[in-house]
């Protein structure tokens, strides 16, 4: 009788586990498919060898950059926040007639999947893509794309993403 009771409990527990497993998978899958919105925050930073310093708002990013780059000045030119629905894209104007497109592609394995394209005008009213990259970023994570010439130094574009 005792063995039967243990078996009953084990079967119940197993059934419970299965149901939970299925329910959790469904919930997570739904999150992937839902038309969610990604909030993308783009910091346009001018890095130069000018007066040392960095805007307080980008101190965290600059601290990371300083490990690799030798610039002394990091000036926040502008901060742009865009809410992008999954499957949609937003356009961000960069200096010197460059344009950045940020595409929200999905939510995979706890990461936000983004595609970033940088285009520049060729001079005849046409434009060409100079950079095309796809990446998966954790919520609140930051990736940096930089190196473009701007007024007094180089443009650094820091992109952070969060789910809304």
């Amino acid at each position: 009788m005792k063995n039967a009771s243990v078996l009953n409990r084990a079967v119940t527990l197993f059934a419970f586990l299965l149901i939970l497993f299925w329910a959790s998978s469904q919930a997570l899958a739904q999150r992937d498919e839902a038309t969610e919105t990604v909030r993308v925050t783009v910091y346009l930073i001018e890095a130069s060898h000018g007066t040392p310093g960095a805007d307080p708002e980008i101190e965290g990013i600059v601290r990371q950059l300083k490990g690799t780059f030798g610039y002394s000045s990091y000036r926040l030119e502008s901060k742009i926040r865009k809410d992008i629905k999954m499957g949609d894209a937003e356009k961000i104007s960069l200096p010197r007639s460059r344009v950045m497109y940020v595409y929200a592609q999905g939510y995979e394995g706890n990461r936000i999947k983004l595609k970033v394209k940088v285009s520049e005008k060729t001079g005849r009213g046409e434009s060409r893509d100079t950079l095309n990259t796809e990446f998966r970023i954790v919520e609140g994570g930051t990736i940096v794309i930089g190196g473009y010439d701007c007024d007094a130094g180089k443009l650094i574009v820091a992109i952070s993403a969060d789910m809304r």
Partner: protein
Amino acid sequence: MTIRCEDVRKLLERFYDRELKGKQLTAVTAHVQECVNCSKELERIERVGRALKAHYEQVAVSESLSGMWNRVSEAIETPAAAEPLSFREKLLGILRLPKPAWAAVAAVAVAVILVFAYLPGNQDSTFAANDCIIDSVVAENCSIMVYETGNAGMKVIWVMDEGTSGTNNNGGVTS
């Protein structure tokens, strides 16, 4: 007191913001009445200011705030101290669970671990270490370098912008 356009330009925003006093105020007031260029500059500042004020006032007028009182009164009626107390109660409730309920909690934990272990795209070993996984980078007419920088291993895609020169342009990389 006469004042040059160059000096007026430096004081124009303070003039617009009504922060000038005494002789400076008198001088700038007189100057902008006479000088076409400075009065145009002042008009430019005023135009943006007026547009902002008008827009945000309009936003507030257009927003139906009729439900605000209901929101506020509901929140007021919820005792401010209730939140931490209820959390503590919840915690105590969990600790007082009977054995079968503890088993269920353990089952939940196992299930959550299983779900995460089997999720596609979550099997890469870099998950905990890196904020970002770059799947592809394609560059045309320029070279690129990908760095991992700082304690957090932040990813940096650095474009060798050949827009102005063909010389080395790796952002003054220190190492």
